[in-house]
């Protein structure tokens, strides 16, 4: 089998384990991307409100999740 047909076979794999494992991996990738992009937005001086709007979540939610690991763009805001 070529790589392409391998992929097609895997994508349609009826084994729940394969599909669910992909969901777990995707969730982890999502978290990694979110951390990276939120940190980048903060470095660009975005407020938590602006980031929250862009992510379509609440300001409190995004602040609670990321404030601890992302340096504050404006020391006043924290």
């Amino acid at each position, binding site marked *: 089998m070529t790589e392409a047909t391998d992929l097609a076979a895997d994508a349609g794999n009826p084994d729940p384990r394969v599909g669910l494992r992909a969901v777990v991996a995707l969730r*982890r990738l999502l978290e990694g991307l979110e951390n990276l992009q939120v940190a980048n937005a903060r470095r660009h001086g975005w407020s938590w409100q602006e980031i929250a709007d862009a992510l379509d979540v609440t300001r409190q939610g995004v602040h609670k999740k990321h404030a601890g690991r992302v340096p504050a763009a404006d020391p006043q805001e924290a």
Partner: protein
Amino acid sequence: MFERFTQAARDAVVRAQTEARGLDHDRIGTEHLLLALLHSGLTVPGLTYPHVHEQARRRTPATLGVEPDRDQADAAALKAIGIDLDQVRRTIEATFGPDALSLPPPEQKRSWWRRAMNHVPFTPRARKVLELSLREALRLKQRFIAPEHLMLGILRDNGGTATQIMTDAGVDLTALGQQLETALLRQAV
């Protein structure tokens, strides 16, 4: 159950985590609880902290940091739905520099005190010891759990790593239990 723990007992449970980490163990076992209790100043005739530390190191191989490569497994899983993780990584790194994308460890279901324990889980045996320490407090009609109750919990869990280390060191478990009980009943108000 943890709200009944005295500050000293809480400190010991937290210290057990430090002991496990120090030994590169990824689980808090009964031996780490024992180490924490000895560290807190609880004395066991015939037993020293360095001796137990050495025994704990010998009996359980270091497991921390030797987890299978999760990123590799994720890459394979993502490939199955047509996502090329390496390609994603290359795109990100082209903009944000090398190693910009770090995938966080997967979220696990945790109760509040497990989160407070900073993710080093207890072995089923160590959890049993905590339950047994509560049972000992109830048996002695005491509403609090002190380090002595934790030690009694360890003693009641016969066959655990901690009791094995103590037995091998020649500690009389029965006598120790009685001594702890006496001490507890004396300090009870």
